[in-house]
């Protein structure tokens, strides 16, 4: 089905070929590149087969059907915005605002890897293809990808508009979706160009990946916190369009088309002018991208692809000094040489592997978001009331227990890497006891990620709730460690960065992880009830510490039999 959809898109795109040919694009080559690129997209290994492959080429994380379903659900939610305001003009403005923001962010975060496919450098560039053709093929490739996304995301609203404004509004809305999509592409191109012209290629990749991290945090925070913090009905009553600056917002131009054609009675010259801008700007934008921006864009991209290895050496030397502290810590925490090696390799690879950071860093933001979400879930009180209640309650241990979420995230990603084949060293070298590497890995995860986070929260907790919280913090930390070792024991079967990226967990593992969640939850609740007796907490710290110590010792003894090895 996906395949035939692509063919349809190719047919659709070919409508523009005569126009593009006039700007100097070789349309035969263009069609060929697009066809192959779409084929490549479809053949990119899906999560299900990722066990087999995954060393080369990017691996899509979710199955396509899941993505399609998610996008449509998202579309339903944004579509609801249309009902917010009685005037569809305003409702549509909101709708397209969200639509375009989402579209732009998705484009930047999801599509960058496809856009900067370094293989193109060697496969396409030596062939007689002009810059414009390559650039346009990239834009078209994005467009097709985006159109698929846009149609899925827009489909629910398309139906809703029919109910709101009558059947005539539906085809118009379709055109509006196209407008919004092309404008988003135009904006993304401008953002890329600005970034590429102002920062070095290496930085560019980093910025994009931080962008992606920021984006996922934003979505997450918006999802959990927005409904808690603002009253949605207020939004409906703001008359956005009474401000003159609102007319500078592209979504207004797009919404104006509906106003002009469906409610001609309400529209005036300004509306029709806006509607015309809305119609022409996407076309002009695409033309501008193809004609003016594309050649430079392409050149910068090629620099990104080639300069990968050249610019690193200087920064490396600068960093060396700062890390000597961590080196000392590693010697202290993991004195055994093999264990120490495990510690150091985990530390260095985790700090330098972009994919790992992408998956793990957002989790650090999730913890406070979850905390605020849970703590502020009461409905009817004012903000200061809640804050007051919070200070006199004992909710703070929740914050530490929530940190164990970080442990789960890191540990479930630590053994995976796209370059897992380099892990042959573990198997080729005479290592008698892989448990040592694993325990080094675990210690690195705890000391470099978990402990600092807990320390930050402890400082916040103690300054907010007072020193009687110290014992709770220590106990919660130790319990989280026990939980962490359990996860490491049962869920992490591979050495650090030694397995191909797989996203689906087996059914058995899901049950184990649920059981462990329940376990830490139960202990947390127990802890919460014991908190009134300060002494009990202090005493409980001793057995907890012993358990952690013994478990770590045991963990270190893992043999080769319990390690899952990937096919190298």
């Amino acid at each position: 089905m996906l395949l035939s959809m692509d063919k349809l898109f190719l047919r659709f795109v070919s409508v523009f070929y005569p126009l593009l040919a006039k700007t100097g694009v070789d349309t035969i080559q263009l069609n060929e590149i697009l066809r192959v690129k779409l084929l490549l997209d479809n053949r990119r290994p899906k999560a299900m087969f990722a066990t087999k492959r995954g060393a080369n080429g990017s691996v899509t994380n979710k199955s396509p059907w899941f993505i399609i379903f998610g996008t449509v659900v998202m579309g339903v939610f944004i579509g609801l915005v249309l009902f917010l305001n009685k005037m569809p003009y305003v409702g549509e403005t909101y709708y397209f605002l969200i639509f375009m923001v989402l579209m732009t962010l998705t484009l930047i975060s999801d599509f960058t890897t496809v856009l900067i496919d370094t293989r193109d450098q060697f496969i396409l560039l030596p062939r007689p293809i002009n810059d414009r053709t390559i650039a346009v093929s990239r834009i078209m490739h994005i467009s097709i990808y985006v159109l698929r996304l846009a149609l899925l995301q827009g489909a629910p609203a398309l139906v809703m508009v029919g109910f709101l404004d009558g059947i005539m509004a539906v085809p118009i809305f379709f055109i509006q979706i196209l407008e919004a999509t092309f404008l988003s592409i135009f904006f993304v191109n401008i953002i890329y160009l600005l970034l590429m012209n102002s920062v070095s290629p290496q930085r560019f990749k980093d910025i994009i990946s931080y962008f992606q991290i920021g984006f996922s945090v934003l979505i997450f925070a918006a999802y959990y916190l927005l409904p808690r913090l603002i009253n949605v009905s207020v939004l409906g009553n703001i008359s956005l369009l009474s401000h003159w600056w609102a007319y500078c917002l592209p979504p207004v131009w797009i919404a104006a088309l509906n106003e002009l054609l469906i409610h001609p009675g309400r529209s005036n010259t300004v509306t029709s002018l806006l509607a015309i801008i809305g119609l022409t700007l996407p076309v002009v934008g695409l033309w501008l991208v193809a004609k003016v921006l594309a050649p430079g864009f392409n050149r910068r991209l090629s620099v990104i692809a080639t300069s990968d290895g050249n610019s690193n050496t200087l920064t490396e030397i600068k960093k060396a000094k700062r890390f000597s502290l961590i080196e000392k810590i590693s010697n202290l925490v993991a004195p055994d040489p093999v264990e120490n090696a495990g510690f150091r390799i985990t530390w260095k690879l985790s700090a330098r592997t972009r994919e790992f950071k992408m998956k793990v860093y957002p989790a650090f933001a999730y913890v406070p978001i979850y905390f605020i979400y849970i703590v502020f879930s009461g409905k009817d009180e004012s903000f200061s009331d809640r804050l007051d209640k919070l200070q006199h309650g004992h909710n703070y241990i929740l914050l530490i227990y929530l940190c164990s979420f970080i442990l789960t995230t890191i540990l479930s990603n630590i053994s995976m890497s796209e370059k897992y084949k380099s892990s042959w060293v573990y198997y080729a070298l005479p290592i008698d006891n892989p448990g040592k590497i694993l325990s080094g890995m675990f210690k690195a995860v705890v000391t470099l990620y978990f402990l600092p986070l807990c320390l930050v929260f402890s400082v916040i907790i103690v300054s907010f709730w007072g020193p009687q919280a110290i014992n709770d913090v220590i106990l919660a930390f130790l319990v989280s460690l026990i939980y962490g070792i359990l996860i490491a024991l049962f869920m992490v079967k591979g050495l650090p960065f030694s397995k191909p990226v797989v996203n689906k967990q087996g059914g058995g593992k899901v049950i184990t992880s649920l059981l462990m969640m329940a376990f830490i939850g139960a202990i947390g609740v127990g802890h919460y009830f014991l908190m009134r007796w300060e002494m009990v907490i202090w005493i409980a710290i001793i057995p907890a510490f012993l358990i952690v110590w013994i478990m770590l010792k045991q963990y270190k003894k893992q043999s080769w039999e319990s390690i899952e090895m990937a096919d190298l």
Partner: protein
Amino acid sequence: MSETPLIQIRNLSKSYGDKLVLKNLSLDIYPGQVIGYIGPNGAGKSTTVKILTGLIPDFEGEVIVDGINMAKDPLGIKKLFGYVPENAEIYDVLTPMEYLDFIGRLYGMDETTLHDRIKRLLTAFSLGTNADDRMDTFSKGMKQKVLLISGIIHNPKIIILDEPLSGLDANAVIMIKELILRLSKEGKTIFYCSHMMDVVEKVSDRILLINKGEIIADGTFESLKQNHSDTLERIFSKLTGREDQANEADAIINAFD
């Protein structure tokens, strides 16, 4: 050998930041020559190749191929070149048939000629039975063969081979060596980059040695032998200032003490 050079490089310079990788390189290459291009790691070898193939568009100096100026019409030059890159970058989820079809079409080849040629080449490279298998299951040598085909599929005037023998077995190596000689007899100009001195010695009729961004030796193997040493390996180490390999090896052995 004709009078006008096919490739003319004049005062070619390229720097990455402060680091000058190519220093005023000037070079004439005549049609039908097999150029063995050698040099130590980091000497500027692959930079030269990348400039010639258009992978690096910004450089100082002048590159003229078959009367076409690189700065003015890079596409015209790219049409003349066939390039087999060193790092085996390939869309390996495609089949050889699909991939080569794609490449051929990018050169604007007509479908019937293209398909016929692909089939014949694949069979000649003994990949005939794998034509419709995805390349992600291929061995390194098989991928290398597909890359080689993709470099000659459009029957180019000039072929640039960057370490083309990596991953190939002995039989394939013999075949490629034979192929290079035959191609040069057909009048093709071949630019052959490699670290394997024995192969370079045998296939090239002109050897260029680059070191630190400058060409320090240029001539037939025979002429280089007269002036320097008896094998290309020795000539290489003598000219790139590393004659004390014995001492280096000593130092390595001594490091264990």
